[in-house]
């Protein structure tokens, strides 16, 4: 026994050629196995006269004065040729930029000179050389915005209205929170936990929605998981390194505040995407409801930033500066979101941004509960705090009702 341990220790210390050989051997063998499989593998018996698996994903349909534009990506394993195109079951002329032949993960933009009707649905179908049909319906046709000054201004204003102003308004609760006793401050922190839990779940839900539109090869659901876990890890690692360097509780709380701001910011980016996409796709009523709903929703996000700051008292210099900065970090991404959603909607990026937002939010929930939970009365499971969590969830649910149009 002792001898074995000794042997292991000796091995652990050695970095000779054997070290590298043992490290790389499985990889070399794997490469050999794959090569062998590709050459003489049992897959051969499946090579019948089946047509190749073709997989195109229409990411976006937009409408111009010249007709219809279609952004398409090949998310399948094989090359796909778009041979013909129909709009509403009528074969139509089209041009493809850069090419109608799409290799794996290639993209193309199609221009179809089709006289579309405003306010009506249009179905675009791409027919491959093998006759496989890939269809997507644009529910409501409306002239798509192009990135000109007027649209930028409009979308920026929407973003400010949805993101920046409500969050900053929510921050005005800070003086109120400062004057609370520890008991009630814990209640409000729990309330924040409730708000954030709801937002986090909401972000995951939306992220999964977009993941469904992502080309299969880009693995939408895996993107959601990766985005969340990576965001969680990144925020945690930053928090930990700051603590090690600064060693002060104040700095740590500040990190927490900014983490909340970043998490909420990414969430608001998602909200911006939704609003921009809604206006672009002609769903004006939906877009308007989203603005109203998100504005109400986001005011409570200001509270989520202010509460932890209040917890640490006046130990931070330049408090107003931090509040404003955190408010902007949380709110301003909504502007970017409206731009992206309005001009260059992409399910891939939408999925990823929302997943990162969700991961950051869950990390922050964990942080806040740890911050509160040092004493028994600070636990989120203490009666008053549990009520706070529940209320937070209910308030978010209530403001969320405004979004249902």
């Amino acid at each position, binding site marked *: 026994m002792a001898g074995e341990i000794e042997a292991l220790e000796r091995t652990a210390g050695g970095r000779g050629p054997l070290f590298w050989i043992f490290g790389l051997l499985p990889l070399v063998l794997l490469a050999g196995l794959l090569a062998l499989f590709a050459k003489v593998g049992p897959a051969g018996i499946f090579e019948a*006269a089946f*047509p190749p698996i073709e997989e195109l994903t229409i990411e976006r349909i*937009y409408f*111009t*004065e*010249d*007709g219809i*534009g279609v952004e398409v990506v090949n998310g399948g394993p094989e090359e796909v*040729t778009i*041979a*013909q*195109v*129909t709009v509403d*079951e*009528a*074969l*139509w*002329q*089209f*041009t*493809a*930029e*850069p*090419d*109608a*032949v799409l290799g794996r993960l290639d993209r193309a933009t199609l*221009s179809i*000179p*089709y*006289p579309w009707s*405003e*306010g009506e649905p249009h179905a675009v179908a791409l*027919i*491959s*050389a*093998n*006759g*496989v*049909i890939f269809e997507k319906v644009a*529910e*409501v046709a*409306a*002239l*798509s*915005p*192009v990135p*000109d000054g*007027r*649209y930028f201004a*409009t979308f920026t204003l929407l973003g400010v209205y949805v993101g920046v102003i409500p969050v900053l308004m929510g921050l005005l609760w800070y003086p109120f929170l400062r004057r609370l006793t520890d008991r009630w401050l814990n209640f409000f922190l729990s309330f924040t936990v409730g708000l954030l839990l709801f937002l986090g779940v909401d972000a995951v839900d939306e992220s999964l929605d977009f993941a469904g539109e992502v080309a299969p090869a880009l693995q939408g659901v895996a993107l959601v998981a990766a985005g969340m876990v990576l965001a969680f890890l990144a925020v945690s690692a930053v928090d930990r390194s700051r603590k090690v360097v600064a060693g002060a509780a104040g700095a740590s709380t500040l990190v927490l505040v900014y983490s909340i701001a970043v998490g909420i910011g990414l969430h608001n980016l998602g909200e911006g995407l939704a609003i921009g996409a809604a*206006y672009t*796709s*002609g*769903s*004006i*009523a*939906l*877009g*308007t409801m989203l603005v109203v709903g998100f504005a109400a929703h986001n005011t409570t996000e200001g509270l989520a930033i202010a509460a932890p700051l209040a917890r640490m008292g006046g130990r931070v210099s330049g408090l107003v500066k931090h509040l404003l900065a955190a408010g902007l970090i949380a709110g301003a991404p909504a502007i970017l979101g409206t731009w992206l959603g309005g001009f260059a909607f992409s399910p891939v990026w939408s999925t990823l941004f929302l997943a990162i937002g969700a991961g950051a939010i869950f990390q922050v929930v964990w942080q806040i509960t740890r911050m509160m939970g040092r004493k028994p009365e600070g636990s989120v499971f203490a009666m008053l705090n549990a009520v706070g969590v529940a209320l937070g969830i209910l308030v978010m649910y209530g403001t969320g009702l405004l979004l249902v*149009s």
Partner: protein
Amino acid sequence: MMRGSLGAAAGLAGTAALVGGESQDGSGRPAPAGEADRAYREQGEYEPGGGPHSHDSSGTVGDVDTSQFDPMKFLEEFDYGQVSTLPDGRTLREYAVVALDKEIEIAPGVYFPAWTYNGQVPGPTFRATAGDLMRVNFSNAGSHPHTIHFHGVHPAGMDGVFEIVEPGESFVYEFEAAPWGCHLYHCHTLPLKRHVHKGLYGAFIVDPPEGRPPAREMVMVMNGFSTEFNGENTFYAVNTVAFHHAKPEYHIKVKAGELQRIYLVNLTEFDLINSFHLHAEMFRLYRTGTSMETFELTDTVMLCQGERAVLEFQYDTPGLYMFHAHQAEFAELGWMGFFEVMEE
């Protein structure tokens, strides 16, 4: 998604400029028919309005490989068989038919795994005179069992229903061509829908002994293809290739004042009916072509699956005349073309 207030939509969208203008086709594909059409218009041959509502912005992109199957050639090609005279003085017509699996091009760049007679869809247009003896030497070089079921009059054993011809085997159909008229043939192996839809069909014309009045003759087999095999046709056409005769280079040229005769056969699968509509002229409709006295003067005819008719008409004024299925959906999915009428 919710339908929003369109007034607001228009307001928001009002100033949007055009995106990029005309798209450049950097794909190296054949020029779309629209461009050819435009060039054609510039020659002053005809001048319908341009823009997205005109017929030159709809249709297919590119051309099929006509060296494989040429709809223009098929249109006026009749297979009279190997002709000889029997001891009793009757005419014997012998035809060689081979069933083959073959990938065919049903629209530019779109390929369909067909089952064919003699490697083409529709199969050859067999033609004989009433009273001739038909001898059809059929061999099956395909991957599935097949038959040939002729419409018309013949003995039960020549009906192509019970004598299933397995791959590698053969069968001789022998019967007297009767009655005169416009008929058809198709595979009658089960599953029937699949065997017909895959391409095993064609026209079978039996001429009256005294013949029909001289005319320019064409055969049009109305068909469709469900590329996803889901019972819904992706493309429609006469003689397989969607929109072929809609392209300026493949317009059907017609001499003004000359009698035109179309042998029209409906072999569209899945859809209950198909139809033929002629623009700016009326045709004499001889149903099944079995009478030369009884006809109807019309410009639209509806045919059930397997129904057929002989159509006669003439144009007197040069110009472009459209013909198509009067189901707009079929027309827009490929069943449309033009007669280009020229001075005598």
